[in-house]
């Protein structure tokens, strides 16, 4: 793994069944690269939560993944409604998901808190009416400074 590997995906907002394909594909790549299985799990669970969010809250988006020798960086971008209060959205249990989404097993308000606990860094920037960017970093080695 000398060079950076960059992957990008379109997340189809109209297809709940397909949500998770990007995360699934990243999982395969990380496995092939021989990345530690705990790290893989932390990355793909976080990605999957963000991917589901992009589908159910924002009507789809894009994912970019940058795999470097020392870290994995993931960025989700969407043109959805945005998040008015990011602090509140990060709180365990806060959710605006519809009844239909809840019946599918989501909408517990656990996704963003899960991402926070599994990644080393998470940054959410959101503009109401414009969209949301969720960035996350997982270090492959212990970060020098966290």
């Amino acid at each position: 793994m000398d060079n950076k590997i960059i992957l990008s995906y379109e997340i189809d907002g109209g297809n709940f069944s397909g949500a998770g394909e990007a995360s699934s594909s990243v999982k395969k790549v990380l496995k092939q690269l021989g990345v530690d299985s705990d790290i893989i799990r932390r990355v793909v669970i976080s990605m999957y939560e963000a991917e589901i969010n992009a589908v159910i809250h924002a009507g789809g988006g894009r994912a970019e993944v940058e795999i470097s020798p020392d870290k994995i960086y993931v960025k989700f971008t969407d043109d959805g409604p945005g998040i008015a209060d990011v602090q509140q959205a990060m709180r365990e249990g806060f959710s605006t998901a519809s009844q239909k989404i809840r019946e599918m097993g989501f909408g517990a308000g656990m996704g963003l808190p899960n991402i926070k606990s599994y990644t080393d860094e998470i940054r959410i920037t959101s503009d109401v009416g414009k969209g949301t960017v969720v960035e996350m970093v997982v270090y492959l080695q212990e970060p020098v400074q966290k």
Partner: protein
Amino acid sequence: MKLNIVKDLLGARLLTGESDERLARFDIHSACGSDLMSDVLAFVKDQGLLLTGLVNPQVIRTAEMMDVVAICFVRGKTPDESVLALARERGMPILTTRYPLFIACGRLYNGGLTCGEE
């Protein structure tokens, strides 16, 4: 606990067609029963078996991200063929039992699948 024993304890039906010998090669050390996928995703520990009453494709995806070995649907639920296809692609055995979630978990716990608790 071998997956064929799990199947027997739950009186479950296998939907993905593996032989009993093949099932015996899956060793289950822990299980998780939930209808909330984000709840399942909140526990990064090794999850052997997922028991759930939900049958949509995201159950298979959740299991995939968590490295879950096998899934058992409860209350006699069976998913669509497309969902089973997703599981087959991933080599993930799928069972279905007529027991509700609580009873299914209880039978496994009684049978010795205690996830190291007790």
